[in-house]
């Protein structure tokens, strides 16, 4: 996925990617990444958990506009099935 991200950024479009295998992102070096230690197949979280999906989406957009160093990986603090997303806005 990171290879595709690099090609799109190269074309002049700002990109952010979600990673669930940090080691891959460290190797491939996409421009901007948020990392979640979540299971495969769940980059935005659990089915029908709208608050959780929304929070990940908001974090992605926030990091897209605030990461200033190419290749940055931001570790999001959410522990799988342990974080109460109702507290977020």
């Amino acid at each position, binding site marked *: 996925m*990171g290879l595709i991200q690099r*090609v799109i950024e190269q074309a002049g479009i*700002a990109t952010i990617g979600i990673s669930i295998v940090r080691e891959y992102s460290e190797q491939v070096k996409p421009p901007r990444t948020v990392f979640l230690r979540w299971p495969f*197949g769940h*980059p935005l979280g*659990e089915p029908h958990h709208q608050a959780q999906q*929304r929070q990940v989406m908001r974090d992605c957009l926030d990091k897209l506009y605030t990461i200033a160093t190419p290749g940055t990986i931001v570790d999001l603090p959410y522990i799988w099935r342990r974080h109460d997303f109702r507290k977020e806005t």
Partner: protein
Amino acid sequence: MITLSRLKNQLLARAATRFPILARKFTDSYTPRASAGRVPWAPPAVPLAQATLALITTAGIHHRQQPPFDMSDSDGDPSYRELDSATLFDDFVITHDYYNHSSADKDPNIILPLDRLKELVDEQILGSSARTHYSFMGHIDGPHIDTLIHHTAVEVAHKLRAQNVDIALLTPG
């Protein structure tokens, strides 16, 4: 008819989702192509409230009537599918044997957050959504990596530019 090798891949993918230690073994056994040199960089050209966003996923989702990704090639399939944001969730399939997509089959927003995207546009937090988003099957190896980075991903980048997309979110499977 599903082949034995496809069945094996699907069972391994299910096990890796249920038991994180197995996922660890799987990821440790694969080395992605490392990138050297300068990391591409394009700052967002417009504020978020004016930006057009496209989603690109490697989770293998596509419209049911589109050809499925080729799961018989162990090096994967570097092609892509165009996704119509207005109709995709009415009738979609996920063709990808290398992760357990039973959760995404129930709610595809966890791999391609189209509904969350629409909400952010309705709330005027985000400018707009691209009409067309793009899907790959993210298990690509061997000679298909060059096809991906020199041909199919470049084609998608050009199509994003043609749609006046400003920013893109990429999601894995």
